[in-house]
């Protein structure tokens, strides 16, 4: 009897405990410890080199490399995510209609997502080669001069945005598709009867109905993009992101400082700033989208 009561009280907590224990050990503790490290002069082998207070954060505010990396990260985010989400919406709308081989197309959109990022980045890295890359060879045939994709800043952003979109387009498309399938069919039917065009139905029914899902994908994309790392690292072949840090992201700078230059304290400070930035951007997203929702 006694245990039966206990069961009722504690069982739910026991069931969720594995997640929270693992979360505590592998997320919460490292995050808190990292904050501790960020207040110190710390190196990998030497370990703690003394308390420095907020010095790492103060340096970060004046560090041109940090602002450069932040600009790169945000620019790649904008170039990648805006067209990606718009395209995903359109694709999802198409896949939501009755088309031939519907199942095949739905599976095909998600295939890039399940390929390894590293493998994909290596292939794209070669496509975007300066002297022998396929893309430059193709541009050459239509009379455009070869582009140095790793040296020209804007070109490097575009190259990375292409990689990001290649990977995430299908993922977002399927999420939108799932959301669209929950929209009652009779809404469209009555709109048709009232004479609304396909485009009008898309803007007036589909978009408002999937708005919460758009918020979700924007937040997920923000979190992912603020941590953009693997693609540019492989594209660059190191943490520098181009000879001038043309496409060094904040996450790369964090690794560059912590691993190559052995400034663990400063690396930890950058990691914390990335975390704070993600929180801030997510809040902005929530406010922004709820404002839109309130207005409609």
């Amino acid at each position: 009897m006694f245990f039966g009561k206990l069961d009722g009280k504690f069982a739910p907590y026991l069931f969720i405990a594995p997640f929270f224990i693992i979360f505590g050990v592998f997320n919460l503790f490292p995050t808190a410890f990292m904050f501790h490290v960020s207040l110190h002069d710390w190196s990998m082998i030497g370990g703690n080199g003394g308390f420095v207070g907020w010095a790492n954060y103060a340096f970060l505010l004046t560090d041109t490399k940090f602002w450069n990396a932040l600009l790169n990260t945000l620019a790649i985010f904008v170039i990648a995510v805006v067209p990606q989400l718009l395209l995903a919406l359109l694709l999802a709308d198409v896949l939501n209609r009755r088309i031939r081989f519907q199942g095949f197309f739905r599976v095909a959109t998600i295939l890039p997502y399940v390929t390894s990022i590293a493998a994909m980045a290596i292939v794209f890295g070669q496509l975007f080669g300066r002297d022998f890359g396929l893309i430059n060879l193709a541009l050459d045939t239509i009379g455009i001069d070869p582009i140095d994709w790793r040296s020209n800043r804007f070109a490097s952003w575009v190259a990375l945005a292409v990689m990001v979109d290649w990977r995430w387009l299908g993922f977002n498309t399927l999420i939108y598709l799932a959301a669209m399938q929950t929209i009652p069919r009779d809404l469209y039917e009555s709109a048709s009867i009232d004479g609304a065009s396909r485009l009008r139905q898309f803007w007036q029914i589909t978009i408002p109905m999937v708005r919460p899902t758009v918020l979700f994908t924007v937040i997920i994309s923000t979190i992912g993009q603020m941590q953009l790392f693997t693609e540019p690292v492989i594209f660059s072949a190191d943490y520098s992101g181009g000879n001038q840090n043309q496409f060094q992201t904040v996450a790369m700078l964090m690794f560059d400082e912590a691993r190559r230059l052995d400034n663990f304290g400063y690396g930890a400070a950058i990691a914390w700033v990335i975390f704070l930035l993600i929180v801030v951007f997510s809040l902005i997203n929530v406010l922004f989208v709820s404002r839109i929702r309130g207005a409609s």
Partner: protein
Amino acid sequence: MALVGSAAVLAVSGCSGDTETDGEVELVLETFGTFGYDAVIEEFEEETGYTVDHRVYGEQPDFAEALEQNIAAGSGAGDVVALEEAHIVQMLEQGEAFVDLNDFGAGDMEDQFLDWKWELGQTTDGQLVGLGTDVGSLAICYRWDLFEEAGLPTDREEVGELWPEWEDYLSAGQEFRDADTDAAFVADVGEVYTAITRQAGGEIYFAEADDELIVADNPVVRDAFDFSVELVDEDLSAGLDTFTDDWTAAIQAGTFATMPCPAWMLGQVEDSAGEDGEGLWDVADVPGDGGNWGGSWLAVPEQSENPEAAAELAMFLAGPEGQLNAWEEANNLPSNLEVLESDEVQDTVREYFNDAPTGEIFASVAADLQPYYMGPGHVAVHEDATNPIDEMQRGGISADDAWDQLIEGAERAAR
């Protein structure tokens, strides 16, 4: 037989199965790239009855990162680990993380080695951390077929005589350029910059006395930089960053004619150029004085559970048999004088490189090599200092900007 004794003790004390299976000694050797140890490890295993697990990492920076992590964690490092020249100064500062090889009788080997190579393996208080493996004396690799096309001499002796000094190398480049072969003269001026700074010997970025950053005032750096600017201004550079995909593709396509080649670079060229490039490359003397570029040491981390057997392996690999084998397998130039002067090395010709007598070319310089002082931050500073040079040769920035960024990058990296 102290070695057998220690193995037995470890077995009784129930040491983890990681280094020990059924009372047998199992050693882990960690290297990167190509050390050319396959045959000599088998020999060692036969002689001692130990088992050696040779773990090879692809590139040195990845390996250095993993090793540092394992040293910091106090476990996970191999029993014998390779330390590259770029890495050894930092590791010497962590002397307590490694055993003193003098304790295992390695001190007796001193006479076998090039003096400076031996010195660099020691901490300031005389602890012997690393035993020298290879050194990287310099030469120039060139495409004789492109030289022929441009009307330059193709014979390696004559090519070497073409450029006693770097200025002559520049003139040869102008002649090559004017012949319009479609190929650039040099792959990457950053490599020329590196070669010249190293040939100068002595200090590059850091003062030997107090490790102060002297990059802005050191004429060695400025001169090497100015020469790389000249090469770019004369339109002699292919603007390739060495070891990138574009660089590999360019070697295969034959779009440049020369590159500075430390001994170990030959293997990289051969791998990158593949079968199609066989016989097209040749090796000539480097302009200026001999200079060292690269090379490694072997060390035994303190965390090894079998330091005696590990030291034995390190001594064997750094000894005459190991070094000769590494030369034969991978053309890693010995730092062991005895091997360096042996007929086996002196008479070596490399078929792939148009039968170039690589033994003679590289070994003749090795004895006169001057070591240069690196300082603990050399690697990071060098990387950040050469990035602007690479950008300049791609046409991304002007020479003045490149110089400013070189100083700025060096200062930031040494922070």
